[in-house]
């Protein structure tokens, strides 16, 4: 070491990324438990695609490959994307989304630390716009599904679109709770009536609320390990809950409550794993609050009034654009300078 300080006292980038991956594990276990092993294939596909494309691009860009592959950031992107995609989607959907995230959104902008947008959300948004139908192939929670697929059967479906003879696609797939609310509201059903359906659980969707709970657990681990600060989760969940509660309070028949919003879709994943991405987010504490609160409001607005059932990806990407401005506006006062 040539320069002081000669000591270093915090986790390296690799350790940080590793802990983020570790924090996702409870969610993945819950996912498999509630929806079957299909998601594991998506995770594997995304991981391999991410590492391979990252290595290739690093080579093309004449960058050292090993240290950047070891930093673990590509795997985090891959896992977040895979967890955001419907596990019944065909294999190439995962591959295309991951390639776009790593190659275009990350490496073409300069690689680790230089991407202005969250790569996983870019990958997700590209797929959502390009292949809207495939993006709705969500598995039904095992508790209410008409049939269960084994790992091998999942494999065949994802790679060959082939189902066992006695099982129809409708038996294993289902609309998500947010999707159901959206379509049912259009059909002039009341909120109480909608959420009384068997696919809804106590807080969110049956099964999915358990997964969301596991994400929350992982998120609390990240907070405890000081990998993330409280600002983003608190401001995001707070603003989302506040918007939901406000409108639900005024018109409970047409607006979903706070619990449903928090425990549905990608809200919890966003609060602890997506909006907390340091590279594409603001750096000041005040900036983090503004950024995350904005995502919360936008997510709620898109879910409620927009054309898509969930709004996390677009909300995050929109706020990513605002980051330079937020950072510039929220510079803290330097010690010894006028208040």
């Amino acid at each position, binding site marked *: 070491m040539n320069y002081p300080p000669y000591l270093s*006292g*915090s986790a390296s980038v690799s350790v940080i990324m590793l802990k983020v991956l570790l924090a996702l594990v409870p969610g993945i276990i819950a996912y498999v438990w509630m929806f079957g092993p299909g998601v594991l294939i998506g995770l594997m596909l995304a991981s391999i695609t991410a590492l391979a494309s990252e290595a290739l691009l690093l080579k093309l860009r004449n960058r*050292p490959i090993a*240290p950047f592959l070891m930093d673990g950031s590509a795997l985090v992107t891959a896992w977040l994307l895979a967890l955001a995609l419907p596990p019944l989607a065909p294999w190439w959907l995962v591959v295309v989304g991951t390639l776009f995230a790593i190659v275009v959104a990350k490496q073409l902008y300069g690689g*680790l630390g230089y991407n202005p947008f969250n790569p996983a959300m870019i990958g997700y948004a590209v797929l959502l716009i390009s292949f809207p139908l495939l993006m709705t192939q969500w598995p039904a929670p095992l508790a209410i599904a008409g049939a269960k697929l084994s790992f091998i059967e999942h494999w065949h479906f994802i790679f060959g679109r082939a189902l066992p003879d006695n099982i129809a696609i409708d038996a294993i797939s289902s609309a998500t709770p947010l999707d159901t609310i959206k379509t049912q509201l259009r059909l002039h059903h009341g909120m109480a009536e909608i959420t009384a359906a068997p696919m809804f659980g106590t807080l969110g969707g049956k099964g999915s609320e358990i997964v969301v709970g596991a994400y929350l657990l992982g998120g609390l681990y990240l907070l405890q390990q000081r990998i993330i600060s409280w600002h983003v989760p608190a401001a995001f969940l707070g603003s989302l809950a506040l918007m939901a509660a406000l409108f639900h309070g005024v018109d409970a028949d047409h607006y979903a409550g706070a619990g449903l919003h928090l425990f549905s879709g990608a809200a919890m994943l966003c609060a602890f794993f997506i909006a907390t991405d*340091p590279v594409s987010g603001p750096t000041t504490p005040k900036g983090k609050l503004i950024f995350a609160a904005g995502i919360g409001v936008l997510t709620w607005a898109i879910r409620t009034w927009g054309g898509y059932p969930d709004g996390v990806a677009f909300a995050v990407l929109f706020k990513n654009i605002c980051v330079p401005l937020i950072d510039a506006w929220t510079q803290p006062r330097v010690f010894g300078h006028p208040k």
Partner: protein
Amino acid sequence: MISKLFKFHGGVHPPEHKLESTRRPIRNLPIPEMLVLPLRQHVGNLPKIRVQAGDHVLKGQLLAEAEGSVSAAVHAPTSGTVVSIEEQLIPHPSGLPDISIAMRPDGEDRWIALEKTDWRHRDRAEMVASLRESGIVGMGGAAFPTQIKLRPSGKSSVRTLIINGAECEPYITCDDLLMRERAEEIVKGIEIAHYLLGPENCLIGIEDNKPEAARVMREACARSSVKIDVAIVPTLYPSGDARRLIGLLTGIEVPSDKRSTDVGLQVFNVATMAAVYRYFEHGEPVVSRLVTVTGNVKDPGNFDVLLGTPMSALLQAADGVLPDTDALIMGGPMMGFRLPSREVPVIKATNCIIASSPRLFPPQPPALPCIRCARCAEACPVDLQPQELYWFAKSKNLEKARDYQLFDCIECGCCSYVCPSRIPLVEFYRYAKSEILAQDKAKEAASLARERNDFRLARIEREKQERAAKHAQKAAGAKTEAGIDDAKKAAIAAALERAKAQKAEVVPQNTDDLSSTVLAEIADTDARRAAAANTQEN
């Protein structure tokens, strides 16, 4: 007692490693065979040499005297013979040699006649003036001449005197041992500073990882005629930074563009106070200091060392270094620097020597890009945004770096310490600071040259107009009697001017057939020369 402590933003908790060197009492070092005394051991002007090679000097004899107001004298640390006065390697981050006095001790360690004074009845101004001959500088490592800081001030008086016993850097324990073993000296030094500055109150700040030192200091303070409060501050690097300590103890935030004295505060290190005591009570100038020798040595500890002693002698006193030692660090691991050689001498700013090894300070992997995690911003005690400053420094966006208050950075290293990408952030800030200073200097020189040129052109124009006016006057009043004198003068002036013009023409110029670009280049060069000449004149 202090009822309330304040806080500062950020800070880090590096492993302390202080126990290793506090197990044994302060030890003395035998007089080495050769002492090397760099003239520059302080911030400020180089002192003026007062001896020649071959001179025999006594312990405490003046070797070089303070030059100008910001400077410090250098004294012979023992009796012996001046061997040479030449450039030698000194302990400085640059690794460059500097002018030093080498002397061979005669082993007798004979003092000059020491003047013991009863300072309580001395004139304050005279005492401060005499400090110029003491060689005392800030012994915490800053090495700022103490005579300036003890001046009974003109524009702002010191209301609170703060004594820094925080010693927040890992590994360093010389202040700890000094407080434990020589609390009396420190307290008497504080009494002297109190006498000179007349503050309303007086505080000593000690980190809570030094309970023994704090206890001894409390006892010594209780015996003092002056009311001195001992405040225990939480162990948090860099609480020993003067502005941080002021904030911790008083809640006062010294404005960025002001000095602490401007807001009625003055801070001294405990070792500086002990040196002040030795000077006024016993007449002894600074000839030695306490140095912590630790890290990869067999028997770490604290030593009372003559200034000029080679580091190698210190290592020997600590029973030598372990085989995997790869370098010596002077200062702590956070702000210290690698020494260019084991033979460089101990100077007034040498508080600690750490033998480093790959085991103690593992080599860092190559830096990764910044991931904007802002851990640096959380750790920065000045509340800067290190990640932004890094970005600006790296892209040479120096104006932006200045806008984001780069010059408020105290280079404490907290940001680099917490960086998960292992970016040597402080190095980038040092680089950006020196670039900005160099640019400012160049800009200043250029604008000065331009101003002078503008002035010259204006003068030429004015003279031309004056001449024209005179000519006109001459033409108008040629026939009148009164105009004769003026006409004569004008004629003389015109003649002189013609002669000057001819003279200018005679200067050979081989520029008749040159292209316009070459002519432009020549003009450019001439302008630069003129500018350079102007600057030199200045």
